[in-house]
């Protein structure tokens, strides 16, 4: 995920390359935004005019799309993404307590990053693991039946973040 320390010049270069690569795809916007985010960790403001030009849209339209979707981040995020499922099946198995525990343990609220830049905490609405709730996702791995103790174990494997 996010490299975070690219110069603005390098960022622009990366964005331009991706815009060139995707712009002729039908419905290029979402694949392009995902690609930019995969490369940079977020979609920087400075990418907006480049995307707008490449896809022949106004900047307002590009902003509109980015802000509509929960996935797209407009600011740098932590090295790891930790998502806690807030949907009903997980609620029935104690996800409300789990989310309170997670916020207290990490000292952040949803959409915030730990002070050491290691973890960004996010809510998610269902990971399709609802028969073995509560569920969380750490980067691309999903974990089942996550008790508060299990959560602590999993977090400790990500390095320090308190």
């Amino acid at each position: 995920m996010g490299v975070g320390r690219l110069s603005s010049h390098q960022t622009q270069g990366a964005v331009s390359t991706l815009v060139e690569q995707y712009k002729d795809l039908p419905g290029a916007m979402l694949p392009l935004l995902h690609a930019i985010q995969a490369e940079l960790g977020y979609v920087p403001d400075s990418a907006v005019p480049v995307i707008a030009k490449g896809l022949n849209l106004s900047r307002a339209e590009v902003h509109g799309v980015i802000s509509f979707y929960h996935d797209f981040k407009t600011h740098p995020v932590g090295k790891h993404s930790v998502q806690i499922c807030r949907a009903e099946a997980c609620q029935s198995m104690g996800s409300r307590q789990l989310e309170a525990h997670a916020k207290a343990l990490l000292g952040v609220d949803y959409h915030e990053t730990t002070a050491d830049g290691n973890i960004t905490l996010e809510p998610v609405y269902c990971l399709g693991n609802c028969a073995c709730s509560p569920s969380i996702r750490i980067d691309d791995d999903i974990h089942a039946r996550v008790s508060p103790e299990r959560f602590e174990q999993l977090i400790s494997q990500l390095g320090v973040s308190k």
Partner: protein
Amino acid sequence: MTFYIPQDTTALALGADAVAAALQAAGNEPVRNGSRGLFWLEPLLEVETDQGRIGFGPVSAEDIPSILDALSDDASAHPLYQGEIAAIPYLASQQRLTYARSGEGDPLCLDNYRRLDGFTGLKNALALSGQQIVDQVKESGLRGRGGAAFPAGIKWQTVHGCDAAQKYIVCNADEGDSGTFADRLVMESDPYQLIEGMTIAGLAVGATQGYIYLRSEYPKAHQLLNAAIEKATVANFLGDNIQGSGKRFDLEVRLGAGAYICGEETSLLESLEGKRGMVRAKPPLPAIEGLFGKPTVVNNVLTLAAISTILAQGAAAYQNFGMGRSRGTLAIQLAGNIKRGGLIELAFGVTLRQVVEDYGQGTFSGRPIRAIQVGGPLGAFLPESQWDTPMDYEAFAAIKAMIGHGGVVVFDDTADMAAQARFAMEFCVAESCGKCTPCRIGSVRGVEVIDRIVAGENRDDNLILLHELCDTMEMGSLCAMGGMTPFPVRSALTHFGQDFGTSSQDLSGSGDH
């Protein structure tokens, strides 16, 4: 002996990789199969032996040495021994059509797919005209499995009848409802079935391009689908001149970006076109003016997967299952606070009580079941008096509930139904596309009003206000997001009024406001 350990999301989430590593360390390279959907047994280790295919579960890496010992002696003596897989009652009693192959082998192995009757439907379809395929689908009685239950054949007929140079097949793999994983299980355990169904749809209506709109919450399905499309293309089941037929069909996966509303078909199309996922007014129907303004079939994963079965086994065989106007099988997804959660494929008509008691064996916590939410976040909470309703679209509609995509979420008696009602409104706040005021603003007000009721502020007035808000949302919303969020809210009020600090008589909303 051949060992199998699944690579499906739930099995992985329960430690299947560590089990696989332990097997490898002991010199047994396992096949990474899909899952049977018996999630309460995952990770489920299967072993092909002289006595047939037997299972152990739920298994952790530490159990491997003792299982290997037992296998060289008396397997049935092991505490995790489950006997012959096909005889496990949870599985043996199901009527598996869509999930017949699920868990049998490596989901990406084309030979395995063909050995288990895969691509038979496609082969049959290639010998038919487009209209003949559409007729088969109509005859089968198949209704859309995404929630709205619209007859698939009628939708296809419309697209078939459009005169256009370009048409599209769009698979709705947004599976946003809590408590659902049936689409995921198909995509992760039997992805060629979906590819086959979409190709048949393309042949039926004359479309050469398909898109699978997949939610970004499913990274494993994403990886497996892409790999399956690549292999199917190399083997000429996709692409140009499919199996020498002269027919073309190309397929691409597109990722969503964490918006529940993009499961609604017109919002999904906007999103695929690269826009905000704002719901479109209908008409025009997507079948006539869909993706990029072209005639488009939008169907759920399970609808398209069922097409493979229908074309392979015949419309009559499929329509023999079910009751009333609900034909075929329903993929019930048993989830939440349940001892034995998983995928249960049965003909329509089984009761909810049979599902949660016979299959589920009650709650995971061991406490009594209090409420069951069927059909996702827009579905009603059902009290015990309604659990004998057969799972059939019409029977559920008659009690103001819905089958939806088949998700069944169980809550035990510690559930706070006022908190659940509040969450329903809160979810609508977070996920509304913003087009209609009743949905966008009404849900914000809904959260506030529920908070006041629970806090005991002007309770009577606020209860009337909440019902009025629900009326406004139901009547003034363009789609079911705003239009059905009142269902869980009102059912919580009606059946679980004590959680709002009031007796349920005052709360039914059938009064004189």
